Every structure is written in C-alpha cells, then in structure tokens.
C-alpha cells in the first residue's frame, strides 16, 4: 500500500508537471503572438490561476468533472486522480508561462533573424534554434517548480486521492500516532533529493556543449549534498548546481 502511495505521488507530480510545461509553452507563445485575443487569453489564464489558491482550483476542478473515472485508450484514471493532475497541471502552466517566456526573451533577437534570413519558418526557428538555447535558462527554475510540485501534490489528498500524504493521514487518523508524518516528511525528502541529482545531470548535459569537461555521477551526487542540498542551490544557476564544475569559459 505504501509503495503504491509513493508511486502515486511520483506519477501525479510528473504528469502534472509535463502538463504544466506544455500549457506554459502554449501560453508563452500566445503571449508573444501579434494576434491580440491570444495575448489576452494568455494573460487571463495567468491572472486567474496564479491569483487563486491551488487548493480552491483542485476542489473546483474535482467538482466540475463528472463520472467516476476517465479513460485514455488502454488505461483509465480515477476521477479524483484525473481532477488532481489536471488542477495541478493547469495551475503549474500559469507559472511555467513566465519561466518559459523569460527563457525565450533571454535569447538574442539576432537568433530569430538569423533563422529567418536562412529561410526557416517561425516554428522551426523556435524548435531548433530558440528553445534549445532557452532551455538552459528554463531548466533550473523548472527544476525548482518540479521540486515544489512533488510537495504541493500532497494537496490532492483533500479530494480523496491516495498518495504519500493521505497514506500518512490515514494511519494517523486510525491510530492517533504522529510518527507517520515524520516518515512521510522523510520520503518527500528522499524524492526531492533524488530529483536534485537528476536535475544536476540534466543541467550539465545542457551546459556540455559550451563547456568541455566531464564529471562523474558520484562527484555530482556529492556536489548536490555539499553545495546546498536539494532546494536552495538551484536558484543561482549557472554558477550554482555545484559551481565548481560549471566555470564559464
């Protein structure tokens, strides 16, 4: 049962984050459109979903989605799981829009012009030239977002989703013992720590084309723990994430 709860937290977080990235990207591109209604829609989306509590959004979406389960071809999701993922993802998209837009904005306009002058079209320039470069700027805060997502996903316990926190909560309400909450805190810490290592690897991959030297997985893991642990260090990219291997050339 417990492993099931752990797995639920992991996949709810991942799917919701992916949904958030997709929605954020769409909203960011809409925000930069020359077509006014699209810009307006993008602005309204961010206003609403950043301006209201995620807990309210979870409740609201849970209440408006009918039925007991939602099917996607071969597999089905319980209604509350689907509602939870949708709410977390849509909420996340509003934050991701700003992160992705900042990433795209950080790329010199000359890159778009160079692509155009070669006869490339907008979509191709975005996909092949701008976004791969923007990824370096987007990934570090995205890592933070996912770290938050794993913890925020605990809120879906309120609509009856079985995951890490609700597992602890169930044990607590049947026994009155607070130990499950300590255990659950530990497991969240395990998840976020693993994620920190994964993120360091991803960030290094992105940096590798500009900086030559390799670093072993063990060194990376050590750096994650010795240079700020799982959460705070991510903000100071590109010099963070174990700045000692990311010297700018």
């Amino acid at each position, binding site marked *: 049962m417990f492993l099931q709860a752990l797995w639920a937290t992991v996949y709810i977080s991942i799917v919701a984050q992916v949904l958030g990235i997709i929605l954020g990207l769409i909203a960011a591109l809409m925000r930069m459109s020359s077509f006014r209604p699209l810009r307006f829609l993008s602005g309204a989306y961010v206003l609403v979903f950043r301006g209201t509590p995620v807990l309210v959004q979870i409740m609201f979406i849970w209440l408006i989605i009918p039925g007991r389960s939602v099917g996607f071809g071969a597999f089905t999701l319980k209604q509350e799981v689907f509602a939870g993922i949708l709410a977390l993802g849509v909420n996340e998209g509003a934050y991701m829009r700003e992160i992705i837009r900042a990433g795209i904005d950080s790329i*010199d306009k*000359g*890159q778009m*012009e*160079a692509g*155009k*002058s*070669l*006869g*490339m*079209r*907008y979509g*191709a320039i975005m996909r*092949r*030239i701008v976004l*791969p*470069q923007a990824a370096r700027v987007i990934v570090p805060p995205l890592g933070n977002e996912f770290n938050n997502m794993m913890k925020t996903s605990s809120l879906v316990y309120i609509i009856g989703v079985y995951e890490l926190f609700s597992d602890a909560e169930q044990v607590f309400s049947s026994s009155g013992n607070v130990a499950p909450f300590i255990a659950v805190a530990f497991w969240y810490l395990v998840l976020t720590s693993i994620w920190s290592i994964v993120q360091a690897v991803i960030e290094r991959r992105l940096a590798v*084309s*500009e900086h030559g030297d390799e670093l072993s997985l063990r060194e990376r893991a050590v750096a994650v723990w010795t240079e700020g642990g799982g959460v705070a260090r991510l903000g100071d990219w590109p010099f963070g994430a174990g700045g000692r291997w990311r010297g700018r*050339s």
Partner: protein
Amino acid sequence: MMSGPEGLVLRATEVHKHFGRLHILKGVSLDVRPRETVCIIGTSGSGKTTFLRCINHLEKIDGGSIEVNGHPIGYRMKNGRLVEDSERNIARQRTEIGFVFQRFNLFPHKTALQNVVEAPIQVRGLSKQEATNDAEKLLARVGLADKKDTYPGKLSGGQQQRVAIARALAMKPALMLFDEPTSALDPEVTGEVLDVMEELAHEGTTMIVVTHEMGFAKRAADRVVMMDEGVIIEEGSPEHFFESPTHERTKAFLSKIL
C-alpha cells in the same frame, strides 16, 4: 510568378520606410545585375542598413517595391492591392537571399558545421550526407576546415564571421547581403573576413555590401553607392567615386573617412 526585367538580381524601386515618425528611407531605387558587387557607403543613420534589411524583409517597407530575381519580396498582389505575403512565401523568398550580420548571429549551441548544415537540411531538405559534404567544402573555402567541430564560443570574431558567411552561402542564394560585416571585429581580424569577401566578389557572387571599409570598396566593388539621409545621392565605379566624386556630401564624407 512574375518575371522580372531581363537579368536583374535586385530591382528596388522607390523604397520608403518609416520608424514611427522617422522617415528613414525616402525613395531608394537600386538595380543589381548578376555577378555584380555593390558597396553601399554613407554616414550612420543614412539608412543603408535599413535598406539592406528591407531587401530580405527583416524590415517591412512602407512604399515602393523590391524584387529579387523577379519575385516581389514580402508583398503580393491581391485583388489589385498589395498585401503582405504569407510567412511561408516570405521564408521561401529568403532562401534566395543570403544575409551576413554585423554581429554574426551564429547559433551558439551548434558547432560550425552544424550551423552551416542547419538550413540546407531543414529548409532545402538535403540529406545529412549531402549537406555535410557541401558544408565541409564551404568551410574549407573560408579557411576553417579544421574548425568544423568547434562551437562559436571558442572561435574568434573573424572566424565566427567566416562561418556565418559559409552558413549563408550554403543556401546557394542568388544574392548575398553583408551588413557591416567587419564593424564588430577587432582590427587585426577584419582582413581575413574581407579577403574571403573579396574572393567571393571576384568569383562572381552577386553581393551588396554595406561597409565603412573603403579599401575593400576600392578593390572589390563594381559599383559604389553613397546614401545620405535616406536617399542615394551618388553612385558610380570605384574610380569615379574615390577620384572624382561630384556630390558635396560625398566629398565631405570621403575626406572624413579616408
């Protein structure tokens, strides 16, 4: 497709361009024939860079017309009115026109070779093998065969600009535009870029070069064009230009810069 006047690569007619209330181009007309090298000179703010950017529609024009190989750039006739062309058509027209930027604008996340093969593969649909063969030849031509796997960040300014020239040439454009290609370079490396351009000119590449390098204009240009305050005030052979300019503003400009 409209067919252009016999043999002209570029026909610009009465081109007007405003930036807000600033009237930058006030009726610029210029014809360029195949294999011709035209240098555009003039003070900064005279509109020469803007004119160049209009030719491949990086800037929209407000009046007049620009045709490359007989195809109007950026606009087409619809019910007797000129309307802006679709993004797809504009992109297709740009494949005819190579552009070299003052600040190179290489793709920093791609190696020199990847920079050069990008558009031939993505836009022309060449196979990776074909594109790579072409690109290696082009990089050799600009003297950078040994740098093909180097990222732009590890190249000098002069080397970056030469990669940028190879990248533009890879699309086999009918017309090459150079926007002050050496202005962002250290003086000691301008020579290597100008040499490559001079070679292109002598090989018969059709090109328009906005430049302050009068030595290059003298050696490589078939024709020199002087722009001032949004119009062409004088044009002629380099001999005419540097030995007996007629316009007062040209004389003043040349005496300052030479």
